[in-house]
């Protein structure tokens, strides 16, 4: 199963909550090596975001993020896992699960099978 792993910051972050967290480079190396991480990247902060909407065939642009996402999204990865339990274990090993939070979203399945 494919999961989108949204890596988010914690607005209530307190220094020290991520003491002892694993290293992100180790995480990428391990998950790439296992064929679990298909792709991923950090994203620039919300201040660099542009929101695009088309209304009445007119393109409307907003400087900044779509309101509800605030400035929480810090990056994403795409995972290929056997099931949710494996995806949870992978997410648990990511340092941002300690310093922030991670949302796992299953992909809508392809019609390949």
């Amino acid at each position, binding site marked *: *199963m494919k*999961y989108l792993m949204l890596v988010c910051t914690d607005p209530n972050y307190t220094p020290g909550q991520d003491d002892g967290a694993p290293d992100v480079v180790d995480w990428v190396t391990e998950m790439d090596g296992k064929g679990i991480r298909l792709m991923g990247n950090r994203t620039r902060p919300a201040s660099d975001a542009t929101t695009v909407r088309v209304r009445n065939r007119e393109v409307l642009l907003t400087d900044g993020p779509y309101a509800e996402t605030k400035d929480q999204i810090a990056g994403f990865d795409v995972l290929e*896992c*056997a*099931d*949710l*339990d494996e*995806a*949870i274990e992978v997410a648990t090993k990511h340092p941002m699960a300690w310093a922030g939070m991670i949302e*796992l979203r*299953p992909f809508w399945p392809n019609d390949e*099978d």
Partner: protein
Amino acid sequence: MQDRIAGIYADGWSRIVATMIRFTGDWDLAEECAQDAFAQALQKWPKTGIPDQPLAWLTTTARNRAIDRIRRASTEAAKLREVAAMEPPSYPNDNEIPDERLELMFTCCHPALNLEAQVALVLRSLAGMSTAEIARAFLVPERTMGQRLFRAKQKIAHAGIPFRVPPGHLLPDRLPAVLHVLYLLFNEGYGDPGKAGLAKEAIRLARVLTGLMPDEPEALGMLALMLLHDARRPARVDSAGDLVTLDDQDRSLWDQAQIAEGTVLCERALRRRRAGPFQLQAAIAACHAIAPTAAETDWPQIVGLYGELARIAPGPIVELNRAVATGMVEGPDAALALVDPIVESGQLDGYYLLHATRADLLRRAGREPESMASYRAALDLAPTDAERRFLRRRLATVAASEHGGPGEADFRAR
């Protein structure tokens, strides 16, 4: 005949649902096929008699129904290929059917599902209650409960929650979730005489769990705790529907066989030397249950057990209980010394039993005016009529006399 079929339903429903989930991977289809198999049994068995291997008969019937349903659903070609590729399981006798109720329990209680969804799934798939029955038990419209179950099953399918017993390294995280749901069901049924069926069902499921995981001391401890509490049920409420405190309960009404069973289970669990909160609470409940009279309760032992509980599972409620037990050994002043910090912390401000307990201790310490103020605070917070009536009686007693009788912690009546 109807009774025997009902008995087979109680034991067989979850077995068949679990087998069908494994076979089809589809929870709704699994339930439908199980339901259909029982409907056919109700129709045929009164004429043909109950087969020698009823579970095998039901499973085979459910399986044939599933194959039928999948074949007819032409849009689900992939599923059809899957089923066709499978060696269709055939069960000549009941003993050969794999018991996958443990897989079912762990999947229903997966922490990625919210607690309400977990409870609803357990009642539907494991206890075999209908959506309407579950809705009634939780005072929500049937439609709401139907949606809750629907969404939970969707989440299991879409999010990829596996149908399995978690591997060893995940068990310490996952078993408590299962225990939590079963105990919550028990409490729901224990607190309300109208829902006694839920408590019985929780005990039945706890027996299934300990039967399938005999080496988990906390599971044994939880079953022991349920049995010990449930044994006192006939004495907990008087004919007027009022709560009776542990002190005042008629101990001849307690179910001695169930107390004996609970005590043995608790000892068996503790011998494994992996004490946990359920085992310690069961040991405390056993101390109360085996005392011939309230006065003969082994309070020093209970103080020790609460001390251990406070060490491994600290919290203000445990602390409050420890204070009460300490009060029984060392007197009300020693107990108040432990209760006052809880009051000052403000953690249990809205908890009527904190105020009721403090009121009782103050009464025993001869501080009647303060005691009455605490009883009034408890009265404002008490959740049920029975509890309010109880507190009013206590308040009246304190107001009427300068000296109370031998005190008893009000909340242990629960």
